[in-house]
């Protein structure tokens, strides 16, 4: 049991998917304008990455490994993730409209998100079994949620204050992200 908790913590904080592995930056910089938007995006990412990691690890263990087609992992995972996201989005839009309005609108954004594929491939390289890869996916997604919500909150604060006019917009976001990334370095001291 103790090993599983370590996996979650390392995935969420130690090597945070956005701030140290640098995956999923496009949506991280783009969508973090308001905190509710960021929360919605984070929620959708947690939902999708967890399912994607589960499906990916099942696929690898029961389809690719036995047929010794390990090299197909990238393409099969990408295919499955894209289809998965589209199906989940349709399912949400039809049957749970309330949840769709909160989370669903971000789902198409996640198909092109590098973090999802990154996590699925990492699970294979680290050789996690089913439970471990689901938890690693969950941890990574929670890390993403934490990072994007914090950035959104900082950005909202930045709207109010006065600063160099040419730094408004993307440059300010990058600086906030840089400072957050430095802060997340602190976690690496946490040797589990």
């Amino acid at each position, binding site marked *: 049991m103790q090993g599983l908790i370590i996996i979650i913590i390392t995935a969420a904080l130690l*090597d945070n998917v956005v701030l140290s592995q640098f995956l999923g930056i496009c949506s991280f910089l783009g969508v973090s304008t308001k905190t509710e938007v960021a929360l919605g995006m984070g929620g959708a990412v947690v939902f999708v990455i967890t399912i994607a990691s589960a499906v990916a690890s099942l696929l690898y263990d029961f389809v690719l490994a036995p047929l010794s087609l390990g*090299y*197909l992992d990238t*393409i099969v995972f990408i*295919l499955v993730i894209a289809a998965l996201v589209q199906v989940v989005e349709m399912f949400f839009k039809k049957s749970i409209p309330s949840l769709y309005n909160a989370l669903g609108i971000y789902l198409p954004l996640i198909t092109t998100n590098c973090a999802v594929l990154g996590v699925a491939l990492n699970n294979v*390289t*680290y050789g996690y079994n089913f439970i471990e890869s689901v938890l690693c996916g969950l941890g990574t997604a929670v890390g993403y949620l934490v990072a994007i919500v914090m950035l959104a909150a900082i950005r909202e604060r930045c709207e109010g204050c006065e600063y160099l006019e040419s730094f408004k917009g993307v440059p300010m976001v990058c600086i906030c992200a840089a400072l957050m990334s430095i802060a997340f370095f602190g976690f*690496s001291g946490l040797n589990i």
Partner: protein
Amino acid sequence: MQGVEIDVKRILHDTLILFVICIVSGLLLGLAYEITYPITSARKAAEKAATYASMFDGADHFEDHAEVIESSTAVLADAGINATIRDCMFAYDASGNVLGYAYSVVTAGKQAEIVTAVGVQADGTLLGIDILESSETSGLGTKADEPEFKDLFPGRKVSSLKTVKKAASADNEITAISGATVTTNAVVNAVNAALAVSASLN
């Protein structure tokens, strides 16, 4: 569900196209892999043989000892090193007695796995290391493959090594590459694994 019938034709149409695209891509991938696999693996094997030979310059010939791989998992488990021995070769000199052991050890780096070749003499002194495969962050992780890091290892006669942030004082300390401590740890783990297994062989 009356509306569904009309769509069946559309669904079949879409699925067929997607199926064709996937078949073509599967074919391409399969062909590419099958053609290139023998070439790449031959090249890798040659590289490995060359590295081993460079380590044991006195060796006359190498013999593969697959049985060591099974026994090594138990040894590594209780030594608490999470690494896997991919293969192990014994180096023999002309008269046939064992000069030392050469291992390819797989450990988890920052981005993906790192395969390190480790040469250990029969009496346990470390002969040297080489990085066979690694996809570490360019600029930082790849420094592990440069001579000034690799030359730290030869000639050490210790049971296990430790990474230290500041300058190494004792014989069993290796200074970590700045900015790539995870990579250094991965390589040091690999070396420790090789040392542990060699000790168990004597």
